[in-house]
C-alpha cells in the first residue's frame, strides 16, 4: 500500500521540484555555463538590472534611460527584424561595448571581462529573458565604396526621419517632445550630430538600426520602406552629420 502511494507521490514531488526550482530556463542552455553566468551577473549586472533581471536594481533609479527589464526578452540592439529575438552575437556585442546614449555611457562596457565570462553572461541573460531560439539576422548587403549623401538627404526627408530627429538631425523634431519608452517614461530622439550611437557608429551599425528599429523605444523598423542602396545612403548621411569627409 505504502509502495503504491509512494510511486505516485515521488513523481508528483519531482514534478513539483522540476516546475518550481527557479525561473524557466531556455532549453539546451549549458547548465554549467548558465551557472557561471549567473554568478557573474550577480556581481556585475544585478546592481542595475536587478537580482531577478526585472530592471529594478538599487542603482536603476538614477539612470536615464532606465536599465532594461531583461525578463521581457525585448532588446534594442539587434541584427534581427523588429519583434524577433536577438542573436547571441548581438547580446555579446552589447555586453562588450556597453550602451552610450546622449547622457553618457549608461551601460558601461564589460570588455575587461574575459570573453568566456561574457559568453556565460549571454547564456544567463537568454535564460532570464526566456529566449530559446535566436532570431535570423537581416541581410546586410555590401557597403558601397562611397556614400551618395545627396540621396541620403532625400531618403531622410522621404522617410520623415525629421519628425523625431529634426530637419538637421539635432533631435528637435516636433514628435521628439512627446516620445515615451515602453514603460511610458519620457525619452528623447538623439541628436545625430553628436556622433553618439547606442549600437555603434560603423556604417553597418547605422544600417542595421534603421532597418530593425530599436525595440522598446519609439524608433521603428524601416526595413521594407527603402531599398538597400537607399538605406546605405541614409546611413552615410546620418554619419556625415557628425563626421566631416565621410567619403574620404
Amino acid at each position, binding site marked *: 500500500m505504502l509502495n503504491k502511494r509512494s510511486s505516485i507521490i515521488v513523481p508528483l514531488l519531482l514534478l513539483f521540484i522540476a*516546475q518550481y526550482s527557479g525561473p524557466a530556463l531556455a532549453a539546451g542552455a549549458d547548465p554549467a555555463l548558465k551557472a557561471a553566468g549567473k554568478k557573474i551577473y550577480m556581481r556585475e549586472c544585478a546592481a542595475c538590472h536587478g537580482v531577478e533581471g526585472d530592471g529594478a536594481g538599487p542603482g536603476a533609479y538614477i539612470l536615464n534611460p532606465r536599465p532594461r527589464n531583461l525578463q*521581457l526578452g525585448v532588446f534594442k540592439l539587434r541584427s534581427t527584424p523588429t519583434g524577433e529575438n536577438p542573436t547571441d552575437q548581438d547580446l555579446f556585442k552589447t555586453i562588450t561595448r556597453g550602451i552610450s546614449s546622449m547622457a553618457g555611457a549608461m551601460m558601461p562596457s564589460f570588455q575587461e571581462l574575459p570573453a568566456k565570462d561574457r559568453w556565460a553572461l549571454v547564456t544567463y541573460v537568454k535564460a532570464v529573458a*526566456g529566449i530559446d531560439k535566436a532570431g535570423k539576422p537581416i541581410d546586410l548587403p555590401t557597403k558601397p565604396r562611397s556614400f551618395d549623401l545627396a540621396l541620403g538627404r532625400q531618403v531622410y526627408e522621404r522617410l520623415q526621419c525629421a519628425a523625431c530627429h529634426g530637419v538637421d538631425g539635432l533631435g528637435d523634431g516636433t*514628435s521628439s517632445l512627446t516620445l515615451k519608452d*515602453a514603460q511610458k517614461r519620457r525619452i528623447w530622439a538623439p541628436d545625430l550630430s553628436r556622433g553618439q550611437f547606442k549600437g555603434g557608429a560603423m556604417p553597418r551599425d547605422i544600417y542595421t538600426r534603421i532597418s530593425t528599429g530599436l525595440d522598446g523605444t519609439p524608433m521603428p*523598423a524601416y526595413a521594407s520602406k527603402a531599398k538597400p542602396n537607399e538605406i546605405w545612403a541614409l546611413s552615410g548621411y546620418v554619419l556625415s552629420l557628425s563626421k566631416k569627409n565621410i567619403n574620404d
Partner: protein
Amino acid sequence: MVQLREELSRRKFVVAGAAATAWYALAGAATANAAYQEINVSAGRTLTGRVTFHGTLPKPDEITISKDNTHCGTGSVDPDPVKVNSDSSVHNTVVAIQGISKGKSWQTPHTTPRIIQERCRFVPYIQLAPKRAVLEITNKDPLLHNIHAYEIIGRARRNMFNIAQPAAGQVDKHIMKTRRSNIVEVDCDAHNWMSAWIYLSDHPYVTLSDAKGNFSIADIPAGKFEIIAWHPVLGKAKQTVDIKPGTLPNLDMKLKI
C-alpha cells in the same frame, strides 16, 4: 536483506524518476498542444448579458493635437475615450468565456484582423482576433505613422513590433506573438494621441459589447465556465455560468477598476 531493500528502494527511485520525467514531458506536450479544437456544436446555447460600470469615472486624458494639423485636425483628443450610458451600460468591452478548449470555428472579420491609420486615428479602436493572427496595417495618411504594438503583462508593456509607415498607401503584415497575455495595445509614437486595442483569444467565444452595453455569445457547448469582461479603462468583471438545458441567466457584468 538490507542490501536487497536498498536495491529495491534505489530501483523504485529510478522508476519513479523516469515516470516523473515522462509525465513532465507529456504535461509539457499537452500545454504546447493546448490549441483550440474546432468541432460542430449541436444544441449549443446562447449567452446574453450587459456590461455596466457603477464607480467613479477616471478623469479623461486630453492630448492636444500639436502637429500635422492639416491631416490630423485641431483641438484635443482623449486617446482612450470612455462613454458610460445613463443606465450605466458600457460600449466596447471585451466579454470572453475562459478555458473553453473546443467548439465553433472563428468567423470573419476576426480571422483577418486589420487596422487602418486615417486622419491620425486608428480604426477600429478595439477589435478581437485569434492568438498569433497576422495583423494587416494600412496607412492612409500622407505622413509618418509608426505602428507600435505592445503585449500588456500586468503593469509592464512588452514590445511586440514597431514598424514605420512614412507614406500613404503603405501596407504591412505582422504576426501578433504574445507570451502570456491576451491584451495588445497599439500606439503611434509620432502622434501620441493615437491608441487602439486588440484582444487576442485562444477561441472564438469572445465578443464586444454594443453601444447599449449588450452582448451575446452563441453556440456554447454545455459546461460550467468562467466569463470575464475587460475594458481598456474601466477594468474587469468575472462571473461563473453553468451552460445547461433550461433558462440561462441574463448576465450583468459589473466592471471594476
